């Protein structure tokens, strides 16, 4: 190998330069211009959604339970990109924030959004230690806040609308609506039916969304009939692990979605689900 290099050093220098040029063009050509990308990452049992606005601003909502999220981020993010603008941890359960720890460790994160509830688990304590260690600004998510990703993409927080201290963790889940032009995605964390009822009462028609992520990995404790009716999605993306021990998604939820003619994609069956929106329609 080395002898070969010595022999043909001119051509090897040239090919090295050519590779460098390829490396630059790679980044240019593969950047998806003018589109919002929402990827439901295939991370086993848990939730992890990667969102990239048309201007390149990035947001990660939950990180699954372990390090699978790193491989997924590696494939959806540009090469050598090691920063994420906003990370949202919808609630402190391990299958949502466990994977955020290696993400915070490996990536430069500008801010983290939390519901303000606590869990006395080893994983959550490790997350808090990591946030403190990296000095990442913590933002308490409350109803009415809007994260403006730029280029017309907004993430509006619909819930929690009250103090979450002492609440059951799922009940404190951050619920938000991602909007780009006329396309909307409703992300619900693990919010149970009680929270869904509250959202219907407060938001009514504004809940209407093109895509719904059914709460709690398709568990029957979320996604009530009336909620699906109000949201009226074309597509539902369920984030669950293959053959998980909870039996998610539950048949009741699938029946309700079928009743309203909603197309269902599942990370346990379809792998990573990537949606692209140009502001008028969502393609997948």
């Amino acid at each position, binding site marked *: *190998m080395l002898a070969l290099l010595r022999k043909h050093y001119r051509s090897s220098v040239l090919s*090295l330069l050519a*590779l*460098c040029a390829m*490396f630059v063009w790679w980044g240019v050509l593969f950047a998806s211009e003018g589109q919002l990308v929402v990827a439901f990452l295939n991370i*086993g049992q848990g939730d992890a959604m990667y969102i990239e606005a048309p201007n390149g601003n990035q947001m990660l909502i939950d990180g699954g*339970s*372990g*390090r*699978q999220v*790193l*491989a*997924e*981020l*590696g*494939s959806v*993010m540009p*090469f*050598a990109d*090691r920063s994420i603008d906003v990370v949202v941890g919808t609630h402190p359960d*391990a299958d949502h924030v*466990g994977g955020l*720890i*290696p993400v915070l460790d*490996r990536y430069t994160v500008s801010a983290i959004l939390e519901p303000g509830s606590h869990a006395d688990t*080893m*994983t959550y*304590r*490790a*997350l808090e*230690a*990591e946030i403190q260690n990296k000095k990442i600004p913590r933002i308490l998510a409350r109803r009415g806040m809007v994260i403006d990703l730029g280029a017309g993409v907004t993430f509006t927080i619909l819930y929690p609308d009250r103090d979450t201290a002492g609440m059951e963790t799922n009940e404190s889940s951050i619920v938000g609506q991602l909007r780009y032009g006329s396309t909307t995605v409703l992300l619900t964390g693990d919010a149970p039916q009680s929270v869904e009822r509250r959202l219907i009462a407060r938001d009514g028609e504004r809940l209407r969304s093109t895509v719904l992520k059914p709460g709690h990995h398709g568990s029957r404790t979320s996604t009530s009939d009336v909620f699906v009716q109000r949201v009226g999605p074309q597509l539902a993306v369920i984030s669950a692990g293959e053959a998980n021990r909870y039996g998610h998604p539950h048949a009741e939820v699938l029946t309700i979605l079928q009743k309203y003619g909603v197309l269902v994609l599942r990370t346990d069956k379809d792998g990573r689900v990537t949606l692209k929106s140009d502001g008028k329609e969502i393609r997948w």
Partner: protein
Amino acid sequence: MFFLISGLALGAVQGILFPLSLWWLCTLIFTVAILSFYAYRAHSYEALIIALFLFGCALGSWRGEAVRTPAPLTFPFNTPTFFNARVTAPPDERESFTYLTVLPEGERSRVRVRAPLYPTYHYGDLLMLSGTLTQPEPFLTEQGTLFNYPAYLARNSIVAEMTVKEIELMEPASRSLLGALYSFVDVLRTNIMSVISEPAAALGSGMLLGDSASLGKDLSDIFRRVGISHIVVLSGYNVTIVSEFLLRAFSYFLPLVRFSAASGGIFLFVLATGASASSLRAALMALALLLARATGREHDAFRALLIAFGTMVLINPLSLTADPGFQLSVIATAGLIFLSTPIEVRLKRFIPSRFIRELVATTLAAQCAVLPFIVHLSGAVSVYALPLNVLVLPLVPLTMALTALSAFLVFILPVLALPSAFIATLLLNFIILCARFVERLPFATVSVPALGTSVTLALYALGGLALYWRYHARSTP
């Protein structure tokens, strides 16, 4: 030499499987003494051989006996318990949990703790653990063969598993050479991951630093199914590449400097990457090669393998019986030594290019040698393993070098590492892509009835005899 080592192996197996009686050992030693006296007096070569063989047997059974029954723990099983324990191996991080190997204070056997991935702990930390201890049980693999999990754990003197409820760090690790090496490897791993994206980064650091677990179950299963998992795990092969590289790197120095620097480097590398039996085997063989060069003696690869094998059996006889990685590594090396030249000679007619011919021959030699053992282990055959290996293997040294280069360049300036990291990423992803592609081909793995232990042993004995006969017939015309 050969007889001494084979006696050693036989003795070790006997010592592990059956209790040893003192009388038996005494009789053996007495016989050895008489035989060697006779050999010395009568200049009898045969007597010497038998004496050596028996001496090996005695040594082996003595070592085997020592590890046969690990000391039991004094803690109760299957009820909640707690104790202080020190972490005695670098944590084995999996996709969604970590295995910690800990030694409870005042105990002589270890516990494998299944802990959450975070917070992370380090080699040498003193932890307060609470949870439930369970006895490891043998389990059925996907292919339906029974895996002797307790024996596999026992080779690292682990006698219990624990599902942990709470871990508290009592006292962080004090400074030690091993601790420093492990944290240096951790830094290198972080460097690799900062410039190479997943899953390429996991593959790269697995190849170079032996951290195959973080690849994830999905990918490692694919690699195993298509028959290239030996390049993903830090195996003897990778250690051989690193030691070759070290030898070349120091080749401009004086022999003494070169010898000590290269052997020191190999030693540190193997220690830092966890000192598995298969990498120790490769390191010992590389050392034997170095010694041969330094002393100007003729280098005999088979003798080096025998020395390495014998040393490993002496150090930990259980690696002989319960460490598939070590077993595979020894068998593959023996295959390389004996089969690659005859195969290459026969291939001369079909493959004109010397480079490709050597590649095919070595791959074929190793594959042929390990095939019965793989079937015994897994009950499955990877049909495309040969062409895939021929495609992937030549890339491995280059990929390892580029990954290492990137990891070190990050120390100077991360941007400098980007070009090499980019090429490394391409190569690593290419390997992953190849594996994924082959895995989807029809008949990528064919299930066959798993061979029993006795059948496998008989096959190897036959193969060994055939080889012996062949070589012997040649050397004595």
